[in-house]
């Protein structure tokens, strides 16, 4: 099954929680005070509140509704309505495998993460989300080019497996990778990774370029398909 990039590591600082989607599954990803990352079904075992609205307390995530706390081992640690109770270890969140690699957070629903190896030299640049379909983004990408610091012009080549698009230079060295995370039919998030040849100005150009792609991609939607 797919291993989905759900965000960039540096967009999830310690003591923060964020929502994400893998296929049809709504998940909550959070980082404890000591830096441990967990990814859970976005539904509190108590009464169904989305855990992504919760708050981190040390090594636990607390649900916003009644404050039940769950630790990095997915087990319930504390039930505020019954402060004297030591919750049984059988009360647990539904946890998924989350791996942090190449500055990206990857989630696998079936416990067998497959993380592509070709990004060893790439660094995260930024994430950007698009209010349109994957196809709209891809066709907007095909219409735009990006210039490297040394003047080479990059253009989008074919889509790789696992929703990864590589922008190569003529030597076939990946200069920029775009990881797609499909949230819904009408919403896509892309995470950009670049190699170390880019200057600060170059990184700013990448950032502007993806905003240009977004403007073009979102224009492609006829009005009656907007906000679906």
């Amino acid at each position: 099954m797919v291993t989905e990039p759900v965000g960039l590591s540096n967009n999830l600082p310690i003591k923060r929680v964020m929502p994400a989607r893998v296929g049809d599954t709504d998940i909550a990803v959070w980082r404890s005070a000591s830096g441990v990352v967990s990814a859970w079904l976005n539904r509190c075992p108590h009464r169904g509140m989305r855990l992504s609205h919760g708050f981190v307390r040390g090594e636990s995530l607390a649900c916003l509704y009644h404050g039940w706390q769950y630790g990095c081992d997915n087990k319930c640690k504390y039930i505020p309505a019954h402060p004297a109770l030591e919750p049984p270890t059988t009360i647990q969140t539904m946890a998924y495998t989350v791996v942090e690699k190449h500055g990206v957070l990857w989630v696998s629903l079936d416990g067998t993460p497959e993380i592509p190896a070709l990004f060893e030299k790439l660094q995260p640049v930024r994430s950007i989300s698009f209010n349109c379909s994957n196809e709209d983004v891809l066709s907007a990408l095909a219409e735009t080019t990006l210039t490297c610091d040394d003047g080479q012009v990059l253009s989008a080549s074919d889509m790789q497996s696992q929703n990864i698009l590589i922008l190569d230079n003529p030597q076939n060295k990946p200069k920029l990778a775009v990881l797609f995370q499909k949230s819904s039919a009408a919403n896509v998030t892309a995470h950009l990774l670049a190699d170390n040849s880019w200057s600060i100005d170059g990184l700013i150009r990448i950032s502007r370029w993806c905003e240009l792609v977004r403007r073009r991609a979102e224009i492609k939607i006829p009005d009656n398909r907007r906000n679906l």
Partner: protein
Amino acid sequence: MQETTTVQLTVLGDFRSGEYTDWVRHRANILDLTGWINTRDNNFVEIEICGNPILVEAFELACSIGPYSVTVRDIQVRTVSNGPYSCSAFEVR
């Protein structure tokens, strides 16, 4: 070590769907409780349940509603003991 209590529940209702037993066992497992369930007939179920008193109460509460296919009309609770218990799992008798 937290305190332990053992209670017996007499549950009256309509259990013809046959879904109550598994539902109750699932609940006992989530709450880490031991004991047994015995379905006497379609209208009468006996349960013995043992563990932390707060969790035993949570168990009683869940058993008072059960799955949608079951109607629980009445549930009577009787404390059996407040000491340790010999059962190590939740059994269907």
